[in-house]
């Protein structure tokens, strides 16, 4: 179970973000705006890095639904973070087919390289990592993805992971 003190600062969505919400709601029949909940939570997470409870309350207000309807969804699906994460979240597939070709070693390597346990954030705030379930890329295993764009990295080795982490550090410092 997640141990969450999910608070976070009050939020007010920017007009640009609200415009994106409006576009999504148009996809569904009148009165079925709740269908926009999952896509909107993705947009909120892309904007803030996680989904805070004030943000969920605002989403409920926007969609004309009860806050609990947002909480129950946000906590059910694994992609939504209930607490702040690193700027880059390395999500490594940990399911059977990836483990046949070394996913566990990749996760050990990432833990050692970043010096933080699964789910924790590095001191500089740049990285966090976790194992996730099958990412549907078993033929190119081991694999990891990095949100919010969910860029995909395939056929990982310790060296390619080192390279990736170094590149991201450079990118963040520029």
């Amino acid at each position: 179970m997640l141990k969450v003190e999910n608070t976070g600062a009050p939020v007010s969505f920017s007009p640009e973000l609200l415009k994106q919400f409006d576009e999504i709601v148009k996809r569904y029949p009148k009165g079925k705006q709740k269908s926009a909940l999952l896509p909107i939570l993705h947009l909120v997470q892309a904007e803030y890095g996680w989904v805070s409870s004030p943000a969920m309350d605002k989403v409920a207000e926007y969609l004309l639904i009860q806050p609990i309807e947002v909480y129950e969804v946000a906590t059910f699906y694994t992609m939504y973070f209930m607490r702040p994460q690193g700027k880059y979240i390395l999500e490594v597939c940990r399911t059977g087919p990836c483990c046949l070709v070394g996913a566990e070693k990749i996760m050990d390597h990432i833990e050692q390289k970043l010096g933080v346990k699964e789910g924790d954030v590095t001191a500089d705030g740049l990285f966090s990592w976790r194992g996730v379930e099958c990412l549907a890329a078993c033929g190119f295993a081991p694999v990891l993805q990095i949100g919010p764009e969910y860029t995909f990295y395939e056929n990982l080795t310790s060296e390619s992971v080192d390279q990736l982490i170094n590149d991201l550090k450079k990118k963040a410092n520029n």
Partner: protein
Amino acid sequence: MGRKLLLEHINVPGINTFEVYRKKGGYAAVEKALTTLSPDAIVEEVKKSGLRGRGGAGFPTGMKWSFLAKPEGVARYLVCNADESEPGTFKDRYLMTHIPHLLIEGMIVSSFALGAHASYIYVRGEMMPQIRILERAIAEAKNAGFLGKNILGTGYDLELYVQPGGGAYICGEETALLESLEGKRGNPRIKPPFPAIAGLYGCPTVVNNVESIAAVVPIINDGGEEYAKIGLGRSTGTKLISAGGNLKNPGVYEIELGLSCEEFLYSDEYCGGIANGKRLKAVVAGGSSVPILPANLFLKTINNEPRLMSYESLSDGGFATGTMLGSGGFIAFDEDQCIVRNTWNFARFYHHESCGQCSPCREGTGWMEKVLHRLENGHGKMSDMDLLVDVSKKIEGNTICPLGDAAAWPVASAIRHFRDEFEWHVTNASEAVTRNYGLAHYADPLTKAEAV
């Protein structure tokens, strides 16, 4: 060399763009369907083709379509299931990445056949790059007049939308998918009513896998009868197989159903055998949910006939000695792999992904994970194997959706076929922990040179 119906043009540069796809004959099925065929005639062609659902269950697609209720004045929906999450399966990701217009074309033809005017492609949230690819493809198709109002001047209107999931295996189950699309938790619904009667927003709905919808394109282009000539018996047409694990050439392959398992595994046209010159120990032929088979039973049936890649041949022998084609998620295990560790991994997966609605699944998957964890880590008991089988039997068939069965089968089959490897983990606990691999004596005695 097998015929390619879906991946024929996969290597053409730019085939992911509308322009190149169209030049290669793309959208001909839309033109043919909308201007020369009636919706009922399209359903009839799909029925004749013998196409069976490519998501895993293998239910005849044409029959599923014919169940769709058509009450006056009520909207109907087509929803494409692109929530590909079954461990071992990655064909839909491949198809959407490289040839997205094939799915869009199939969606237009299928929506027309079903009388839908708004259709959704529900893509698992992790596939954001594929969502962007599909959205671009939809915009291109709309720009060319294949989507939107009055398509090709026929008076038929269709809007196509891409919906992201939120990261939940259970949403691959069609009623959980519909719940999720309505903005709720992915809890499967009790059936009946089936989605064909009350699906999305309570309206009649068809949910089809990406590959099933893509297959409608060649069926309309060539005719259902032509499609049915490919394949073997009731396994008609071609199937995308996602090949992963310890293979020399992992990847997505389009095969004619009925290809021999030995050829698929060892021929250089397909998987090219086991990586690093090792021997094959076991195979999961249709995604993690189907029973695992030791090498000998995968290559030959219990009656010593060559096993074929078809719905019927793979399930020959029932669960005692057979398995299922499932989603075509093909996972090969080499002689060094530990079946106990893999079974624990799969059990953890199902425990993690259980939606929690039904107690047998919610509690049972957790028990199985814990017992397998202690076996793998040197604390197992000889009675654990019977305990696991007992728990799996109490989950199987006792849940609203098939996730319970999917969690029970891999555990029960691993113990059925590899029992002494489990026992070895109890009798040689310290060795099992340090060595971290299982027994090799199940491995196929064939080396690659002796095979095909």
